[in-house]
């Protein structure tokens, strides 16, 4: 019998992504979809994608989906989850979305221990609107609205979301990963699996922050962008698990 090593996951529809060549959104979409397929929970999963390059996620994830206002996915997900507590609810959010306009929503979803899973794509910029600075833009990084590089005197410091949310008791699983090479892609998938398992066990809020590239707005080739990510983002945004509630690890897959 033939063994499939890599193939399209049923967690995604057949619609080709609209993302730019080499954009990590595609990689992470695939990982999330694979995890949902492998955990056999697609039929009870409802995804929420607010505004950002991934706003069209409802075209791609092969399950019930709600598109949400910019930044409000955690609130929308909360509404869904409270109505269907036995469903699996996830949000897929960018850094502008989650760490800027949606700050209150993400902090409070975590504080409430809202039993949802958040996939957080940190690419240090507002991809969809053409590359303005984000709360996660690194110091010195040039963007459309920090044309001379981010200056801490004017724009302040990048926010480390995973660390911040880890101070909240309601947060059951918080990790930061990156997708700059295959081993880290594997680790990202593991973290996503753990996050969904956290939800399946009813332990509370789970989030995976994925360091990602935006070759288009960084003005780089896709490969250069992965290199830049590794060399500049990882030092400021250390990878790892920041919060793992005891029960998550207990017989976690």
């Amino acid at each position, binding site marked *: 019998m033939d063994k499939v090593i890599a193939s399209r996951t049923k967690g995604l529809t057949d619609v080709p992504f*609209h993302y*730019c*060549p080499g954009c990590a959104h595609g990689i992470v979409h695939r990982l999330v979809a694979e995890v949902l397929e492998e955990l056999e929970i697609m039929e009870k999963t409802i995804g929420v994608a607010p505004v950002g*390059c991934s706003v*069209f996620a409802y075209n791609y994830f092969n399950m019930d989906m709600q598109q949400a206002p910019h930044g409000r996915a955690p609130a929308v997900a909360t509404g869904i989850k409270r109505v269907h507590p036995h469903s699996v609810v996830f949000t897929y959010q960018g850094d502008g979305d989650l760490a800027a306009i949606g700050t209150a929503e993400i902090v409070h979803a975590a504080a409430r221990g809202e039993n949802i899973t958040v996939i957080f794509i940190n690419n240090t910029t507002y*991809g*969809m609107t*053409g590359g303005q600075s984000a709360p996660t833009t690194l110091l010195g990084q040039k963007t459309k609205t920090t044309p001379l590089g981010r200056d801490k005197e004017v724009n302040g410091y990048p926010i480390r979301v995973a660390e911040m949310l880890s101070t909240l008791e309601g947060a059951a699983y918080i990790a930061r990963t990156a997708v700059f090479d295959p081993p880290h892609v594997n680790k990202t998938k593991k973290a996503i699996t753990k996050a969904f398992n956290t939800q399946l066990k009813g332990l509370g809020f789970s989030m995976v922050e994925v360091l990602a590239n935006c070759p*288009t*707005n960084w003005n780089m080739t896709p490969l250069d962008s992965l290199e830049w990510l590794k060399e500049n983002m990882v030092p400021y945004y250390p990878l790892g698990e920041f919060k793992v509630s005891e029960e998550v690890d207990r017989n976690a897959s």
Partner: protein
Amino acid sequence: MHHEIIIAGFGGQGILFAGQLLTHAGMVEGKHVSWIPSYGPEMRGGTANCSVVISDRGISSPIVTEPTILMAFNGPSLEKFENRIKPEGFIFYNSSIIKRDPQNPKASSYGVPVNEMAEGLGNSKVANMVMLGALIEITKIVSPETLLLSLEKALGRRKKNMLSLNEEALKAGREYAVQRLK
């Protein structure tokens, strides 16, 4: 003189820039001008086009529905716009990619192999300039000198070397028009 121009192609083919250049040159020559972009949601790829009006009289509506000139850089663009051209209008099309003649009998059509010509000059990005060269040679809509002036202003000081490349491309387009299209 009143021209309504649509320039259309893939995102990344320098469509919007070509239109801005033309518009600026028109302004410098004392004409009334307007430029409107239009693009899809994709940051990369997808389609892009712009509408340019260059006219002796004030421009009421900057919206171009029946262009006097179409510059089509790929097949879909030709298909979309070729039948909207005003009678006695012009179609300039990228014959490197578009392998058929335009269908509109009332318009004069000019195929220019801009990709090949640009690659011949060493940089596929100046295909838009080749096309502009052909355009102004045939239609005289603005003078080559003004267009160069506008180009210089647009590129600014930092891109001096880009300037000569663009200049060459313009020239190549004009020459192609003189030799092959007239």
